[in-house]
């Protein structure tokens, strides 16, 4: 599938309740190693209150400056969370449904993981 189709798709819980939209898709480089780089494996979805415009990633990468902008954008994305691949039940054309009892994780990126 094409990743762009997934971005912005509404995310529902097991009962069909709306949780937000797919703001980003998180991958981890630990798939099959090739000669150059490992294959990026889908780790989970970043679900946010707003659509695909996960503007500038302020809510994830710990940027705090310029302070006003950082604050506004963080506020806009308050309540975003990460849900792991294991908790995804169905990826559909119009929505993504999660498994019952899924776990919300923080969307924060570890600073050291970021080259």
């Amino acid at each position, binding site marked *: *599938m*094409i*990743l*762009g*189709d*997934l*971005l912005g798709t509404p995310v529902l819980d097991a009962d069909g309740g709306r949780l*937000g939209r797919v*703001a*980003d*898709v*998180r*991958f*981890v*480089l*630990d*798939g*099959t190693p*090739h*000669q*150059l*780089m*490992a*294959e*990026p*494996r*889908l*780790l*989970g979805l*970043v679900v946010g*209150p707003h659509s*695909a415009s*996960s503007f500038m*990633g302020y809510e*994830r*990468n710990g940027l705090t400056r310029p302070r006003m902008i950082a604050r506004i954008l963080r506020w806009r994305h*308050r*309540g975003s*969370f*990460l849900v*792991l*691949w294991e908790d*995804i*039940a*169905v*990826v*559909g*054309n119009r929505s993504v449904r999660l*498994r019952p009892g899924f*776990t*919300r*994780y*923080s*969307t*924060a*990126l*570890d600073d050291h*993981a*970021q*080259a």
Partner: protein
Amino acid sequence: MTSASAPLPRAPKVGGRILDAQLHLMDRQVLDHDGVPVTTVDDLEVSGPALDVEIAPGSPAPVITALLTGSVLGTRIFGGRPPSSRLIRIPWKDVAEVGVVVRLGVKGEPLDASWVERWVRDKIIARIPGGSHDPR
């Protein structure tokens, strides 16, 4: 909606480097082996999952198979979807490094992604006198 009162738990630690598709890959410049711009990451192709099919617990997670470019940019912005045969792919195995740019481990010249550039060069620019003149 979630109450932001309690901080969410950190995701379990994983072994490799984390890449967020929008934040670290999409819309980044792609350079070839020699640092020549090839294209921009217009979209990404993922190996799965099948649409609207219940994902069996424990199924392996999909992986990124290719960077996409070309008409997919238009459909990403204005909606719609190019047929799979029209997608221009740069396979992930050619990607050497992801930083503020995506670097390939191969030469850009022969890639499908470069066909428009080649066409404009061969049909127009190279035919104007001085088109191959080195400005330095």
